[in-house]
Every structure is written in structure tokens, then in C-alpha cells.
């Protein structure tokens, strides 16, 4: 038996059966259907965000079928001849050791559509003849290089996992590893992971290696805020751009979207006048890159995003600052939420009006000042079946 001490927990506790696949019941049932009807379709494509269990599900399929796995990674696709050499015979011959075999094309996103033209399509042609099921995993199945695959394969989506499911997995692992972590910390890891079980397990493993039990308890929200305070202080007070500045957000354990909100909130506390303007420019450029990442899924842009948020925002001043500033928590999201609560009536009125007039609720909300006048007529109110509460809202004078 190999030494399991240094094996990443996400590998060590990879699920081995359908039953253990947490939070993916729908996907599992679709996979079962695929296996039942095989070889009607030769291939199945499992797609979803990172760490939700695509590869795990593939291995679960193998163990349910008692099958050997022939795994191909994105890096193996460079050479078409090599594919033919490996996949060709393998898709025909029976396994030496097991009754069955599956062919797993893991992380198919990595196959470049430019470099090896038709990479995936070429492979599909080869696999037409396969006598074994072929499993693809991918993050973005809607990329155009997968168009043929989508036609030929059963496409199964794996959903982002709910934090409670993640929490369950973490508790199980803690028990097996004999490690004591407070429920509060586990919950915060689970929430922070945003559905990525692999990330959650990695975090837990790192945490378990810290030998101070004090520290273990302290991780959580407070730690999170402390880490962003430290980063903000560095960015807002230091003029020098060095290695430390470039990596200033590395230790901050919150998502980059949260970092944006913290900087946005606190910029006016840190800078004034022309400096403030330049810092906002840097922030807005970082945001442009964030938008580009979202649209084009080119993750390398994150380098520029972080650079502009750190060095970009820091570089607007010539000299170091001193003193201590009490940075504020971001308030924008809270304000939006509060306003939504207050305008619930307005929204329900607009919903009725929008449905009646074949327009979008958004359009109705935008025209609300005008609608208020039109909706004074009693027969219109009756026709739209407005409730008393809604009518009261309409009759309420506007408070400036």
C-alpha cells in the first residue's frame, strides 16, 4: 500500500460509486440512462464548473462497470498520429485485467481549436468505431469546438454544489482523518468554496496542517476581514511598486469580486482630487478586464485584473503615507438589497402591468412615473386586479 500521508485529500477521498456522488443526483441518473442505452450513443460529455465532480463521476462510472480507465489528458492531443496510435487499438481491444474499459478524455477544454484543427472532431471520428463508452469532461461545453461533440454525445450538466453538500463532505473527511475543526470554520470553508468541492478539500487539508489549534478556530470571517485590511493598507499607503505589491492580494481569502467592492468603497477615504481620479481609472480598467474574462473566458487576464487593483491603485501617489484608517465594509450590495425590499410593491404592480401590455417588467419599472398617472383610473386598477396594498402604494405621495 502506498503512503497516503501526502496524497491530496481531494484524490484520497475521490468518490468511487454513484451512491457517493454528492449533490449530483440528476447527472447520475442521466449517466445511468446513457449506460443502459449504450451503444446507441458512444460518448457522454460531462460539463460544469471546476471541482463539482466531473472526473470523479467518470471514475465512478468505471468502478460501477468494473472497467479499466484509459485516460487521455489535454496534453496528449498535440499529435494526431499519437492519438490514432493510442486510441485506435485501445477502442477495439478488450482490457487485459478487467471485463470492461472506458476511455476518458479529461479536461477537453484544453484541446486548442486553433493549434490542432479539428482535434475533437478527429477524435470523434476515430471513436465511432469504439466498442467502449467514451467520456469527455469539460468546463465550457458551449464552445464552438465542441459543436460536433454535442451532436454525437449525451450532454450531462453537473451543477455547482450547494454549500451544505460541501459541508457534509468536509465533515466526513474530518471524521476519517481524525481532525477536529469547529463547525463554524467548516461552514466558512464550505461557503467560500462556492460549490467547488476540490477547493474546499484543499483548504481543509492545509488548515489541518497548521499545528496551532488557536489558529484553527480563528479562521473565518474575522481572518478574512483582517487580511483585506492589511492588503488595503499596503495598497493605499505604499508608493513603491515591488514584488510585494504585485502579490498583495495573494493572502486575501476572499473572491476578487469582493476585493473590487472593498476597494471601490474605500478609495475616497484613501485618496483625494487628482489621485482619487487616477485610482478610479485603474479600478475601472481592472473591471474592464474582469468583463473580458467573463465574456471570452480568457483567464490569463486575471494577471492584469490583480495588477491594476494592486499596483495600479497604489501607483497614483508619489510618496508613502502613514497613519491608520478605519476602512469601511462595502455598502453597495446592502443598499441594493434594501432598495429591492422597499420597492417590492412597485415590482408586483409592474409585473401585472407588464404581462397585460406585453412588455418586460424592466421596461415597466423604468416607465413607472408615467404608469403611476395612467394607473389612477379605477377601471384600469380593477382590470389589472391590483390588491389593496398595491393601490395604497400607488396613492402614496412621493417622498423626496
Amino acid at each position, binding site marked *: 500500500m502506498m503512503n497516503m500521508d501526502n496524497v491530496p485529500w481531494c484524490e484520497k477521498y475521490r468518490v468511487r460509486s454513484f451512491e457517493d456522488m454528492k449533490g449530483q443526483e440528476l447527472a447520475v441518473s442521466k449517466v445511468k440512462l446513457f449506460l443502459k442505452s449504450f451503444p446507441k450513443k458512444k460518448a457522454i460529455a460531462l460539463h460544469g464548473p471546476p471541482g463539482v465532480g466531473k472526473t470523479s463521476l467518470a471514475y465512478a462510472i468505471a468502478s460501477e462497470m468494473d472497467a479499466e480507465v484509459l485516460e487521455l489528458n489535454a496534453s496528449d492531443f498535440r499529435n494526431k498520429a499519437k492519438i490514432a496510435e493510442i486510441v485506435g487499438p485501445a477502442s477495439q481491444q478488450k482490457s487485459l485485467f478487467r471485463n470492461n474499459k472506458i476511455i476518458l478524455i479529461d479536461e477537453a477544454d484544453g484541446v486548442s481549436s486553433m493549434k490542432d484543427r479539428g482535434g475533437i472532431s478527429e477524435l470523434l471520428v476515430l471513436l465511432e468505431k469504439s466498442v467502449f463508452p467514451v467520456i469527455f469532461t469539460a468546463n465550457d461545453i458551449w464552445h464552438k469546438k465542441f459543436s460536433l461533440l454535442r451532436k454525437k454525445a449525451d450532454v450531462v450538466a453537473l451543477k455547482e454544489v450547494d454549500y451544505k453538500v460541501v459541508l457534509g463532505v468536509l465533515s466526513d473527511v474530518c471524521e476519517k482523518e481524525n481532525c477536529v475543526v469547529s463547525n463554524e470554520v467548516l461552514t466558512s470553508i464550505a461557503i467560500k468554496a462556492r460549490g467547488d468541492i476540490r477547493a474546499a478539500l484543499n483548504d481543509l487539508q492545509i488548515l489541518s496542517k497548521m499545528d496551532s489549534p488557536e489558529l484553527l478556530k480563528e479562521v473565518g470571517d474575522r481572518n478574512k476581514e483582517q487580511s483585506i485590511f492589511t492588503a488595503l493598507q499596503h495598497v493605499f499607503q505604499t508608493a513603491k511598486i515591488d514584488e510585494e505589491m504585485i502579490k498583495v492580494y495573494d493572502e486575501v481569502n476572499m473572491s476578487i469580486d469582493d476585493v473590487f467592492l472593498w476597494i471601490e468603497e474605500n478609495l475616497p477615504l484613501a485618496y483625494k482630487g487628482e489621485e482619487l481620479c487616477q485610482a478610479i481609472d485603474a479600478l475601472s480598467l481592472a473591471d474592464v478586464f474582469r468583463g473580458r474574462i467573463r465574456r471570452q473566458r480568457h483567464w490569463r487576464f486575471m494577471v492584469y485584473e490583480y495588477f491594476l487593483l494592486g499596483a495600479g491603485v497604489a501607483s497614483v501617489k508619489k510618496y508613502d503615507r502613514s497613519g491608520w484608517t478605519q476602512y469601511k465594509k462595502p455598502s453597495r450590495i446592502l443598499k441594493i438589497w434594501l432598495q429591492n425590499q422597499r420597492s417590492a410593491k412597485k415590482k408586483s404592480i409592474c409585473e401585472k*402591468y407588464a404581462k397585460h401590455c406585453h412588455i418586460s417588467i424592466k421596461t415597466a419599472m423604468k416607465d413607472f412615473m408615467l404608469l403611476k398617472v395612467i394607473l389612477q383610473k379605477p377601471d384600469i386598477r380593477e382590470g389589472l386586479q391590483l390588491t389593496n396594498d398595491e393601490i395604497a402604494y400607488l396613492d402614496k405621495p412621493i417622498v423626496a
Partner: protein
Amino acid sequence: MSDHYNSEVWTEKYRPKVFEDMVGQEEIIKRVKSLVNSMNIPHLLFAGPAGIGKSTLALIIVKQLFGESWRENYLELNASDERGIDVVRQKVKDFARTKALGDVPFKVIFLDEADALTREAQQALRRTMENYTSTCRFVMSCNYSSKILDPIQSRAVVFRFQLLEKKDIKRRIDLIAENEGLSISADAFDALYEASEGDCRRVINLLQATASISPNITPDLVNTIVSKAKPSDIKVVLDYALSGDFQNSREKLLDIMLKESISGQDVIKAIQKEVWNLPIDNALKVKLTEKTGEAEFRLVEGADEFIQLEALIAAFIRAGLGGESGDLKGGE
């Protein structure tokens, strides 16, 4: 529910019910009419600005195709309101599962504001269209066809609607005036038209709101309503900015956007119009307008509206600080 009662909302009461009632778009109507007469339509994509008859034409199509039973064979979805493609797909699935009633072998799904769907959602939609192509026809509307994926466009017949001419809108308004016993002076109609930017739905809404005060529609009365319905003055935000007060400027901005449900792009539109009225020199106005355009471009490209508007406020603060540094590229 409310569909069945005789609407007193004029945009509904006076919505054209047959092809012949529609104004403008003559070529499109002729072609659509011949398609409908053959009792078979392809997928359709209607592109063009708001309030020129896209939804109306879709409704006429289904009424012509299905007659009395149009409600059972017609599903209307608004892409900008549905929370994600999964909801759209589920609704389409539920609707398409049962066979069409009557002589026509398909049902019609009207997907309004289809350009509000993300690329990914459109990809999924395209598959959904393919899956139900034997039982459903999609009629989609959008402001800009360039925002609709090519594969979807190639599966649909695309009709580009033109902005209605002033005389066309006048024909509808005259009809309403006659029915409702209103007198509308020529000046008053001009005022209605000016305030609506060719959006017929908005003209009619303005008219109904004005008529609720008096049946004698005058320009003054129209302008009273227009100013009442106008979103809060964005100028306050700009004034704070020009005086160098970033905090108050952004607070006011967020306040207006939230309270009045205005999108970032609408705010930018208002700012762009306001710049020329500001007490600053012309060269600066040009620079600020360029900066405004840059902000709008970034929003269209998918940037965060609050952050980009704050950057725009920063440009106005620079202008207030002393002209020259208002340059987009830093100016140093």
C-alpha cells in the same frame, strides 16, 4: 386573466388587431402576411428599436394563424425578465410537450428582447429551437440583431423594422383622439412626439397620462407630464462632481439608479445629453462626451455599471479641478 377584459390601458385598447391596422413597416407586413396565409411560418427574428410594432406584429400573426384559440397556442416570454436560460428552456419544454390545437401543426413562442440573453444562453436556446422545430415556431424580437448569434439568425428569417415616421404615429394618435373625445393641437402633438423619440407606445402612454388631466391636450400640459415622468435630474450628480465632491456625487447616483430602476446605460444617455448644458468651455465638453462614450462602450462590453460610472464621475471631477487634466489618457 386580465387578457380577456376590455382594456382601458390605451396601448392595449388601441393595439392594432389585424395587419391592415398597422402603420409603417409596409414591406415587412406584406411578406409576413403572405407567410401567414400559407398557414406555415419559419422562425422569425424582428429587429428594431422600441415601440414600432414588433410585439404587435407577433400577436397579429398568432391571431391570424389560430383564430379564437390563439391563447392556447401561444407562449410569450421576455428574455430580460426570465431568470436564466434554464427557466426559458423549462417553460418552452412544458409548452411544447402538448400538440397544437386546431389546423396549424405547430405552436408559436414569442421570445421578446432576445438580445438580453447571454451568448451561452443563446447557444442553449439554439439547441432548444432545434429540438422542438417540428412542433414550435420561434418569433424573436431584439433591438440589435448584431447581438444575436449567427447560428440563430441563420435559422430565422430576419426582418429589420424601421423607425415609424411622424405621420404614421399621427394616424394612430388621431384615431385615439377621435374615439376618446380629445382635442390635440398640432403643437401638442409635436411635444408628444419629441418626448418619445419615435416610440409609439410611449407616445400613447404620454397621451393617456396627459388626458387624465384634461381632454384638451396642450403643449404645456404635455410638458408638465413629461417633466413629472422624467427621471430625476442627473445634473445634481454632475454638479457634485464638478465641485469636486466625489462621495456625494456617487451616493446621489446610486440613489437615483436604485429608486427609479434606471440602468447604467440610461444614466449615460442622460449624462451625454446634459454635458452640452454645463457651464464649462467647449473643448472640455468634447472631452467629457468622449469619456462618456468610452464608458458606454465598456458597459456594452460587459463591465460593471457602478464602477464605470464612478470612473465617469472622476472625469467630471478632473474637469472641475481645472480643465486640462480632463484628458482621457491622463493628460500628463
